């Protein structure tokens, strides 16, 4: 069951947010999601298999992710791997969470104080 209004699902669990942002660009399989998330977060978010696949199962149930065929340009296609892509609803969810985080930073006045942050639009 999908609740069509994304804001009702907020805030997103950081782990889930990390998984979704990885999938924004291109569908991917579980192991690559794990690597990407850990790399992008600089190791701050780790995904062990249990937590990764429990999240994926839940996101599939909620209509936030869907299983998709392997991308055509995939180099080493392993038939046993399942690929996941983000649904339109999932995209809306990520956008809503991102703007929530922005708003949070704006309100707290922290955003300007952060080093290296210019005007991330």
């Amino acid at each position, binding site marked *: 069951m999908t609740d069509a209004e994304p804001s009702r699902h907020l805030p997103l669990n950081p782990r889930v947010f990390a998984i979704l942002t990885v999938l924004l660009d291109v569908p991917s399989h579980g*192991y690559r999601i794990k690597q990407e998330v850990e790399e992008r977060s600089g190791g701050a978010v780790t995904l062990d298999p249990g937590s990764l696949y429990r999240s994926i199962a839940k996101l599939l149930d909620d209509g936030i992710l869907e299983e998709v065929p392997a991308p055509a340009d995939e180099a080493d296609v392993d038939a046993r791997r399942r690929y996941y892509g983000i649904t339109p609803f999932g995209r809306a969810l990520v956008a809503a969470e991102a703007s929530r985080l922005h708003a949070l930073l704006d309100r707290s006045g922290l955003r300007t104080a952060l080093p290296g942050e210019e005007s991330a639009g």
Partner: protein
Amino acid sequence: MSVEEPLVVRLYRRALRIFPRRIRCVHGDEMAAMVHAGWVDARRRGRTAGFRFALRTLKDLAVNGGAARLAATFGLEPTEATTPHLRQMRGSRGGRGMEKMMRDVRHALRGFARRPAFAAIAVLTLGLGIGGNTAIFSVVSALLLRPLPYADPSALVTLNHYYPSLNGMEASVSARGFRDYRSGPRSFTSMAVETGRALNLTGEGEPERIAAAAASPAYFETLGIAPTLGRAYGREVVGGDARVVVLGYGFWSRRFGGDPGVLGRTLALDGEPYTVIGVMPRTFRDVFDRQVQLWVPLVLTEEQYSRGYTNEWLSLVARLAPGTDIGAARTEMADFAERLKQDNPDWFAPDWSIHVTGLEQRATADVRPALLVLLGAVVLVLLIACANVANLLLTRASGQRRQVAVRLAMGASRADILRRLLAEGLVLGLSGAVVGLALGYGGVTGLQSLASRSVPALADVSLDRSVLLFTLLVSLGTGVFVGLMPALGTLRTDVSGALREGVRAGDDRSGLRLRRTFVVSQLALSLALLAGAGLLLKSMARLQAVSPGFDARGLMTFYLALPSNDYPDETAQRGFFDQLLPLVRDVPGVTSAGFESVLPFAGGWSTSSFTVVGFEPGSEEPNAWGDIRIVGPGFQEALGLPLLEGRFFTEADGPETPLVAVVDEELARRYWPDEDAVGKRISFGDGPIEVIGVVGHAAHEGLDADPRVQVYGTYRQFPRAGMFVLARTSGDPSALVAGLRAAVAGLDSNLPLARVSTMERLIADSMGERKLSLVLLAVFAAVALALAATGVYGVMAQVVGQRTRELGVRIAMGADRGAVLGLVMRQGMSLVAVGIGLGLVGSLALSRVLKSQLFGVTPTDPTTYILVVAVLSASAVLATLVPALRATHVDPVEALRQE
């Protein structure tokens, strides 16, 4: 995958079972692959990294697998997976309480993490207690509590013919009786009979012998269970087509792979075609024999109805009419039996009557006493474990008194402190539950593989929802108990006193008193368990020393049933066995061979009443009655039965010669006490049979059964369509099987060998339940002993710690070390004496519950008790000796300086 996976990954694959099927099946392979890659990577970085990786994976499994499993089992989806719900919890007051509790739980976890050894011992101890309870409760739940798989099972009863003067024997009913009980009494709405039947399934593949039942048309209607596939048969088979068969679920899955297309197919059973019309549900099982795999209609003939009331071969099940209770049915059947006796005085013994037994009661009667004893035993083990852990926490609590006093002084409420202690207890209890569930699962699996042969009902046992709930409740109760016990002592802390005196660890009088109480009760409970185990052990030894009356070693047995199509008459049946005997004797390794219609320890029996010519039973005395065996030449030698008088059957005793019989020594002693039995006559109603010999008595149901008299006839005069074959060898009997199979196939390749087993195996199986209770009780007693000894050690170590200064003074004043040793030992032993004294009183009072489990031993057997007291005292002395010896090494200077 061609590459062998590392052990870690294989273990991980197993552990994935914690995840619900849905996740495991879809993602399991990828998860394992991920762990594989991670493991390879971690190992490359060294041993420590590998260890750390394994720990992390374990935590991931436990946390996420546990959460997913909980979600799947109870339909609770912790939405935390996508969105944290903390916001909502923070809003309410209940949420604040919850948060506090969570904080206490975290505090407890941190505390245990700082003292991992302490935590591990406590969790393991509780796990042992909880695990034992989980395992035994799962058996109790499956065997005693789970309802029978029939509609409204409490309304189902069985009827038996009851003979008080024949050791209170309950016999089956006759066809004639069935017809009368069905039409006369008003207590029942429907009634059915069945008889066990073994059928040869031929045609497709290897011929197979199948345990089946012939059940009368009303059987399925009486039980109120519809087939899962097709239909069951009913009254239409009377006068119609009775060649139909209803399959059991297990047989259907095994033989037909669960194919729904099986309906309408034809099975060749004993050479006759039967049409498959239905398949029963998976949970359904036969009322009287759980081995039954298919049912065929039993249509009684006029000839069968016309046989006497005591021609007892049918098992009867009936459904009580609505509004009738079993008491009313009993009264009605008792009156009915009286009238039957008055109308047919020749048929019945004067004390004969009809017993009505509830099916549920009957189904559990055999195992109930043993199971309740075991359940009692594990509860004792859990109590001992609780006392041990409460002891551990008490020791720690007394060390924490100052800390508690400080916190109280600083304004912490007693409720806060209580909640914190409770949280510790609950964390221990629930962790214990996890260990306990693992142990319980292992225990149940172990039990099933050990004993499923002798106790087939164990197959039904599983850790289902009710067992999980039970374990949860037990562990919560345990947690509250071990948490609150020390709390009681700690909260009585006198704040100013504790702060002023600077309470030292171990200097806690009320705590010590509580700990002593625990140790005394532990010792008492252990004594009860040890005594129980000791009595069962002695019974087992006594039982194994009983001779079955024949030589069970080197004996191979199997059963052959001749289908009536191929062997239609007595001549054909006699001819088959006549030809088979020399073939079996010629099998390499066979030293002697014979046949017998009903084999000892094989579960079947055949009894009949008969007349002893010249013997007049008194008016209150029943007719002669006993086991009837049809055997053949060579049988007595093959079984190793001693010939005491006269001769045994030979090939010369045949259909043309006068009827002859051999009797056992029991019969000879009972009816011809001071005379020669050879030449005497007995009769089954068809003319006299001459006794030609007397053999020793062969135990039949079990070594602990009361002996019945036995009469042997030869198959050459009383042919049988089915016989057990006995083959004796001087070597390993199992080595004979191939040769025996070939010998039978040489005569008839369609004939399957059924129930192939060595005699020693059959005898061991007959003691299976007894052995199982013994092993379990012994394990529980050993655990109890170990826990009690630890308890004694703990308390005495604390006592010595507390008296260090005093002991130092004594040593400084010139007390020799022997005196100090004596001092401590005396203190310890006074504790032990009180515990053992209370235990003796308690277990003597409890011992009566064991009575039905014992053989050749009284429940108050003095030698057992003396031995048990000795074992317990010795362990307690050892446990006291260690701290006592430490006391003798107290350095007086050190001890005095400590203050």
